[in-house]
């Protein structure tokens, strides 16, 4: 599986290099390729997984072009793979910055129907030293296991610095139009928070209330996510959690604890030993433990 992915990585990198040659924006450029491979140690079914990603960037004084692609593969009882690509163009003439994103991806496997998605979005941000505001709008066309739908999203947010904290109130609204005729509207007012204390530790939190309306029925839920990151010597730790709470209790939840050991450099690559324990509740709970080796090339 891993070997296949590395072979897939060549056209991925070649595509990025071609994009690099085709664009003449700005004076700086950089590329980064990383790969990770490992095995799930604790799962309902043991699995081997690998991933490879490559990114290219070219920036000028007021413009930037970035492209990236990721290939992932997983094998347990059957084969499962996914591929994603993303292109970004940003323009920052002054106090206002704009970001255009086009992305797409597909996934599927031996026992899973092909799913795919393609989307485009535009974000405008008014930047200030301690206060900023942003507006986002996007359109996505997708197929989830053969079910076709179109998703329109929009969001309005602000963020401001308060001491060591960054507070981010925002309001998002989206509409999902299924080809079979069902339309679902979702409204999500919320508050995000990031903590930058000036130490090698950081935390983020976001929570909001969501109302999804389909026809005459409405479903209300509370959604929240929190994360904590810390670096102690060569070990990086992360703790992420999220939950969705509906009228009948918790409808979805996830938690992940990650520890990664920075094992030094091999040439121009950084060697890491990542481990992750994750718990996902979506219907029935699934726990998994991943251990692997990662190489990130500068």
């Amino acid at each position, binding site marked *: 599986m891993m070997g296949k992915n590395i072979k897939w990585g060549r056209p991925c990198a070649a595509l990025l290099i071609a994009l690099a040659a085709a664009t003449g924006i700005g004076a*700086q450029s*950089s590329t*980064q390729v*990383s790969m990770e491979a490992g095995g799930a140690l604790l799962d309902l079914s043991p699995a081997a997984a690998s991933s490879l990603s490559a*990114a290219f960037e070219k*920036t000028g*004084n007021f413009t930037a072009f*970035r492209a*990236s692609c*990721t290939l992932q593969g997983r094998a347990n009882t059957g084969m499962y793979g996914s591929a994603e690509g*993303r292109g970004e163009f940003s323009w*920052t003439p002054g106090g206002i*910055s704009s*970001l255009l994103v086009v992305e797409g991806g597909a996934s599927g496997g031996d026992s899973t129907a092909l799913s795919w998605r393609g989307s485009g979005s535009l974000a405008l*941000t008014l*930047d*200030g*030293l*301690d*206060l*900023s505001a*942003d507006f986002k709008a996007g359109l996505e066309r997708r197929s989830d296991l053969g079910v076709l739908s179109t998703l329109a999203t929009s969001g309005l947010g602000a*963020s*401001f*610095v308060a001491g*060591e904290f*960054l507070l981010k109130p925002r309001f998002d609204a989206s509409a999902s139009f299924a080809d079979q005729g069902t339309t679902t509207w979702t409204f999500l007012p919320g508050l995000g928070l*990031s*903590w*930058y*204390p*000036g*130490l*090698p*530790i*950081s935390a*983020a939190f976001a929570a909001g209330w969501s109302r999804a309306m389909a026809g005459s029925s409405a479903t209300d839920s509370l959604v929240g996510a929190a*994360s904590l*990151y*810390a*670096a102690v010597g*060569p070990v*990086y*730790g*992360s703790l992420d959690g999220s939950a969705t709470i509906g009228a009948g209790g918790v409808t979805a939840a996830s938690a992940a604890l*990650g520890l*990664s050991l*920075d094992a*030094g*450099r091999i040439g121009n690559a*950084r060697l890491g030993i990542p481990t992750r324990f994750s718990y996902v509740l979506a219907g029935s709970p699934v726990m998994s433990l991943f251990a692997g080796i990662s190489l*990130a090339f*500068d």
Partner: protein
Amino acid sequence: MNRARALLIAAMLCLGLASATAEVKASIAEWLATPIAAPYSSIGAELLDLGARARSLGVPERLLVERLDEGALKRVPPQQLAMVIAQDVGRFATILTMIVPDGARPGDHAALSSLLRQGAIMLRAGFQDSELASIFAKARSEAAGRNKTRSSMDIAARAVNAAAVSLDASIRFGLSPASRLSLGEALAASILPELRFEAVLSMLTRARGLGLQPDATVAILANGLEKGASIDALDREISRRAAR
């Protein structure tokens, strides 16, 4: 706490200079007359010459006396101590030319001594003269670019703080020398107030947790800081990059 000051205090504690009872003599001549200097009588003339050279360059002699105290407490052999002091005179003189490129003598001797100490720690910790000079130049360009009236001491304090934070990040995250310099320059040239420089340590930690490599994160931060990005804008950029 001011990062450079924290580093300085840590260094001083390690070197045994935190003794509250120790009184630093004002000149090398006075120091040589103290009991602690007895083992160093053989290099007395050499030390006096170095003191005279320091004075002629505008470097406060007391800084050398502090280093002599430190060396004597650590029982450094006389010839080695003389060599270290000679190197220090060079380092202090180098830092002084960065603080006041026009050769003017700052009036605030306490502040000058503090900056010289911190700058010398940066050089001893691994910064090259040219790298530190480049960070000083960025701090000067930041003041000029924003039409701010800043004294040479304020500009130097900004540069030393930027260097100290980038050095701290380099040690904690294993940055390449190029990334260390890039981060120091970007902080000095940024619109961030010095008290917020240390936020990049938290940002590097968060970015690492999100899967971004430290050197790649420094490239993102440096690019943003050089273009006037705020903490808010840097936070957004890291989130966006990690989402890919």
